[in-house]
């Protein structure tokens, strides 16, 4: 679980009166519902952050909708101000990249892979006037699995042009690092689930969102796993290979942006928002206090506790306090609360005053 530092406004659906009518999904406008469209309940197509001058950073979210009019669906691109989360509006994208698998490189370049056997990759950008996704249709890269052994769409991928590397997902619990030009395998890095989104974090480092909902930070030059944690409400609304696409790494504010679907209200209006999370786990569990030396009369006993996150990852700098019931004469807690270290562990002390038993409790303050 991560510390939430940002919440966006919800995007809005359009009224049925503002949209063409049609024979599909009549439930959309069955009273009390009044809106003529709705997210189709599958996976988000893409989420990324773009520098939309003069607005410093804009969050984009591309969703597939259900509509009453033919052909019963459309792709809608939403925008938010990344600074304050205000909703800037949406548009029906004209480029129709709905079946493409998007990836954003460290320099902000947006790529999309089609569903062909060649795994052709195109460069996309945001038109400064229309704010729509546009592409010149030129194939930038091709990553056929015959050359890039094991690379499998629709797993996540990341293109690092500076280092000439492709970090690609497979249907196994690892990412593979390929030479971008030749497809030669440089190495692999284990992940806690198969990779669904690969997000550039810094030079040679990326976050990998996996099918288990757990995230890892890896160094793809040294092939090391650096940390592992879990974001609250990972998106797994769809099938294999499409989960978790509604997450991206905000390179400017250095946070995760995660869109999680929540049910519409009674009128059919959207309630979902985007959350921004600082990539430091906050504690969700505090272990029972355990002495690490046998208690002895008239002696001080060190007491161990551990604060950790939802997958057992350490939560440092958490203040842990020990206590005994009021009126206890067998022992007393000694000293100030202790802060957990890099392993999430803290040592407190108990003075044993007499023989007998005592119930010792531990609590943590999460700021």
């Amino acid at each position, binding site marked *: 679980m991560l510390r939430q530092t940002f919440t966006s406004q919800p995007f809005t659906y359009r009224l049925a009166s503002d949209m063409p009518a049609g024979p599909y999904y009549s439930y959309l406008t069955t009273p009390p519902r009044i809106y003529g469209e709705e997210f189709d309940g599958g996976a988000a197509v893409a989420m990324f952050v773009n520098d939309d001058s003069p607005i410093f950073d804009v969050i984009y979210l591309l969703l597939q909708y259900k509509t009453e009019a033919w052909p019963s669906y459309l792709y809608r691109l939403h925008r938010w101000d990344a600074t304050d989360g205000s909703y800037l509006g949406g548009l029906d994208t004209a480029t129709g990249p709905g079946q493409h698998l998007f990836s954003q490189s460290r320099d902000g370049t947006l790529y999309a892979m089609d569903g062909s056997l060649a795994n052709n990759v195109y460069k996309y950008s945001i038109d400064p006037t229309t704010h729509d996704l546009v592409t010149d249709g030129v194939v930038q890269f091709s990553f056929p699995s015959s050359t890039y052994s094991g690379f499998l769409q629709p797993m996540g991928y990341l293109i690092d042009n500076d280092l000439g590397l492709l970090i690609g997902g497979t249907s196994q619990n690892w990412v593979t690092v390929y030479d971008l030009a030749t497809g030669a395998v440089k190495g692999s890095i284990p992940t806690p689930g198969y990779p669904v989104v690969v997000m550039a974090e810094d030079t040679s480092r990326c976050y990998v969102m996996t099918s288990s909902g757990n995230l890892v930070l890896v160094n793809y030059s040294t092939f090391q796993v650096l940390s592992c944690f879990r974001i609250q409400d990972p998106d797994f609304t769809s099938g294999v290979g499409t989960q978790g696409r509604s997450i991206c790494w905000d390179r400017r504010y250095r946070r995760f942006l995660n869109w999680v679907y929540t049910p519409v209200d009674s009128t059919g209006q959207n309630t979902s928002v985007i959350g921004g999370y600082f990539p430091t786990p906050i504690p969700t569990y505090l272990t029972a206090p355990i002495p690490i030396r046998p208690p002895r009369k008239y002696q001080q006993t060190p007491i161990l506790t551990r604060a950790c996150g939802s997958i057992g990852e350490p939560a440092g700098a958490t203040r842990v306090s020990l206590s005994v019931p009021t009126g206890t004469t067998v022992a007393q807690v000694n000293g100030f609360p202790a802060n957990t270290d890099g392993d999430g562990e803290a040592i407190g002390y108990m003075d044993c005053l007499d*023989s007998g038993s005592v119930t010792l409790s531990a609590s943590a303050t999460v700021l």
Partner: protein
Amino acid sequence: MALELLAGPISFSVDGVSLPTWGAYYQQTYIQGIGLISLGVNPSGQPGGTYVAQLDGAAMFRSPFAWGAGSLILVPDLRKDTGIAMWDGNYSDFDAIACAPYPTPWLTTAAGASVASCVLPDRFLKIVWDKALWSGLTDSVNYVEEYAFTTNPPTGDATVSRTNKPGVICLAWRAEGQIRFYDTVNRIQVGETIYLGESFDACWYIRKWDIFLTLESNQLKVFANVVRPSSLSNPVALSAIAPGLVTQMQVRLLGAQNEPCVGEIINWAITSGDGFLVASQSETDENGYAQIGYACPVGSSGSATIAAEVDF
């Protein structure tokens, strides 16, 4: 019981729900800063795979790897601080943070290979009953004896753990509950044999806190590296008692297997007769001995009774 029990038995739980079955002992290892990693955990209503347990038994899902763990074995790889090697007939690196293996084995073994107990910087080490055997890091087929553990020689499998001393590992034998520290550089046991006092499926030494974590019948226990007192000898004078002289009185505090109890407080008192004690308490040394000075008054005669006791 020879070592002091600090906590347990503790059952495993996931989200507060008791977990009756944990992973097999040979598919687990303890890593500082993460916890007790176990393959092949399949709680009802939760995803199956690799879980991490805290010392109080609370377990968290970490990775879907090896929900049906089969014949996989985890062994410590001492070439790295948190290194784990995974055996499936070959050796692969198992990443403790991701709780998943690297896909390419670093050693594809030949026919007849058997799994080591741990990987050292220069060789495989395999503990077979009371023998330590070694094999080259490209082999794991042909093991040769390098040391034999004597005096109450242990039997069966042993768990291997890291210690704070370079080159020294902790070996814990399941059947007898024996714990010994082994210098892998000089190929010799160091220190006394420790008797936990009970058998276990696996036992890991947590070097950061100098405690032992045992697994037995899907439950955890935490033991201090402190011998539980079992017997206290009667006070004896180290020299002749004479009026006007201070004589050292001595007792020895031992555990159930005659291991010395170190650092325990002995309370002394004169229950009858003349004289006085230099102090009312003293502490046992590394051999379990505690001493106190008894001053016999000038002109004193007869006898004095000196008592010693320990509070624990």
